């Protein structure tokens, strides 16, 4: 009951935040020195053509009218057309979203799979060699520019050693589309060849993306475990002679995860944004590549749409994290 209330109130907060976001991003995107009408009209358009198009597309209207129109259209899922691809931006984004989500999920899984256990180990082996090494690694993980790491990994693993594919989500076109997630689709259609291929393509980008996130999770888990481990209930559980493994991996970890879970929401955002550059390096046909392309083409509406979509995904993920929180930490329901 209380959980539903929490979710509802979070959902309610979402609306003003989203509207605010749209307004802010809209204004940012419209301080442009460029003339979108001219870009749409194409390289060889005459001045009259451009003028006509400008009126037709409503670029003559004052900014707030255009904002109103934009928000109205947005409510119906219409983000306008991309200057560059000429397609509805909403379609473009929807089409590319699964690719980015697949990459981000894979990276999140890797980050969690690496970060949490290593964080726990680092904490319980505090100040040992293991801990020192892990700490150095995690600080390094956070200091590496992901695009650079991506380039270097690609250069070594793909170009030099030929172990992994260079770019893309799969060799050529993917398996028959059901969900848009290649790994899922190839499982659903039991296309093992595509599955292997897709996973191999996923490997480098996901790892690149995951490393800083894993480092963050490691640090938070370590700090969380260290904090929890000094708490009274751990002392009590230890004094009552419960096995160390049970205490650490069940009782301590669950408590330490409370703060880590909040981090995962933020990390998702980090990964999503990291995807912009990492996708660009690996030619991953997702939102990041789309965003970079839109940047190169000065396609403001597309960037606007991308930014809003990222905002929505980010907000939704944080909502999920909040809900998850109520399961991990029953005190939030109080």
């Amino acid at each position, binding site marked *: 009951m209380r959980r539903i209330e929490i979710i509802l109130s979070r959902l309610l907060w979402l609306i003003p935040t989203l509207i605010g976001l749209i307004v802010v*991003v809209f204004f940012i*995107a419209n301080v442009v020195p460029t003339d979108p009408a001219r870009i749409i009209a194409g390289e060889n358009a005459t001045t009259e053509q451009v003028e006509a198009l400008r009126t037709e597309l409503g670029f003559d209207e004052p900014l707030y009218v255009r904002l109103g129109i934009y928000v109205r259209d947005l409510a119906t899922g219409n983000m306008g057309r991309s200057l560059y691809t000429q397609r509805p931006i909403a379609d473009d984004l929807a089409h590319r979203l699964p690719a980015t989500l697949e990459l981000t999920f894979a990276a999140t899984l890797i980050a969690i799979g690496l970060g949490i256990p290593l964080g726990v180990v680092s904490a319980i082996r505090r100040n040992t060699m293991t801990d020192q090494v892990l700490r150095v690694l995690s600080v390094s993980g956070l*200091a590496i520019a992901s695009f650079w790491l991506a380039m270097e990994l690609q250069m070594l693993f793909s170009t030099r050693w030929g172990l992994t594919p260079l770019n893309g989500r799969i060799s050529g076109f993917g398996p028959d589309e059901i969900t848009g997630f290649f790994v899922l689709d190839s499982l659903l259609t039991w296309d093992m060849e595509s599955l292997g291929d897709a996973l191999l393509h996923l490997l480098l980008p996901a790892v690149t993306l995951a490393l800083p996130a894993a480092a963050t999770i490691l640090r938070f888990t370590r700090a969380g475990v260290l904090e929890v481990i000094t708490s009274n209930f751990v002392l009590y559980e230890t004094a009552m002679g419960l096995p160390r493994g049970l205490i650490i991996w069940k009782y301590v970890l669950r408590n330490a995860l409370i703060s880590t879970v909040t981090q995962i929401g933020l990390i998702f955002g980090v990964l999503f944004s990291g995807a912009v550059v990492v996708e660009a390096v690996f030619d991953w046909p997702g939102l990041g590549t789309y965003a970079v392309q839109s940047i190169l083409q000065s396609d403001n509406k597309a960037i606007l749409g991308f930014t809003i979509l990222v905002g929505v995904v980010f907000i939704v993920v944080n909502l999920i994290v909040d809900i998850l929180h109520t399961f991990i930490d029953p005190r939030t329901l109080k």
Partner: protein
Amino acid sequence: MTGLKRLLSDRAAAIGAGLILALILVAILAPVLSPYPGDVAEFHLTERLLPPSAEHLFGTDRMGSDLFSRILFGARITIAIAVIAVGVSVAIGVPIGLIAGYYGGWSGGLLMRASDIFLAVPQIVLAIAIAQTLGPSVENVILALSATYWPFWARLVYAETRAMKGQVFIEAAQALGASDARVMVLHILPNIASAIIVRTSIGMGATILTAAALGFLGLGAPPPTPEWGRTISEAREFLPEAWWYAAAPGFAIFLVVMGFNLLGDGLRDILDPKIRRGTR
């Protein structure tokens, strides 16, 4: 004084401080240290893409300029971006967070909602949107980073201030009749300063990474600026043969960000009153 000694006794923090000191020195002394200071703008077309050697420690770039010299000069840009962007963010975010956190209520809520909006999108995405709109230049990168980074500070300071407000000594000061300004500036601010300092250090690192990413995407400084992110993107075309071209700026970024992170971690250990009290 004792603070400095403590800082230096923490190995990680000492390394971090060392790296940053080196960065600052390099930035200041770039004209002296670099073997070819002219190569920031000067080309030697016949010496393009030479591998590292005694003459060119880090090799040469696509225009035949000495990479080592350019990396040294790049440090200046990096410092300028990080210091100004973080400085502006702090200058905006800290007062907002402090006031919103102290007074709370309606206006505080509004301020926080405003920062929520900015935080609803990963910083780099907003920064990209802004930088792309304004056009590529170092000034615009700084502007984009500041405009998108202040909410972090507002958030941090807000949370810290709220926590502080619950502290008995703040209530005691108020009960004593201290004015709001007095309580905020003399009591709250010094007590949350350590959190701000720690985050500033780590924030510098994060800002450098973001700025480099913008440079990499072509949203940063125009050529022939020796900005590190841009140098990496220039280098891409010449990989894997000219490996040094990307390796040098990549490592430079890594070391500097590492420096700030290590320093931040060390400062956290030193400044965190919880830990300090624990040692008593």
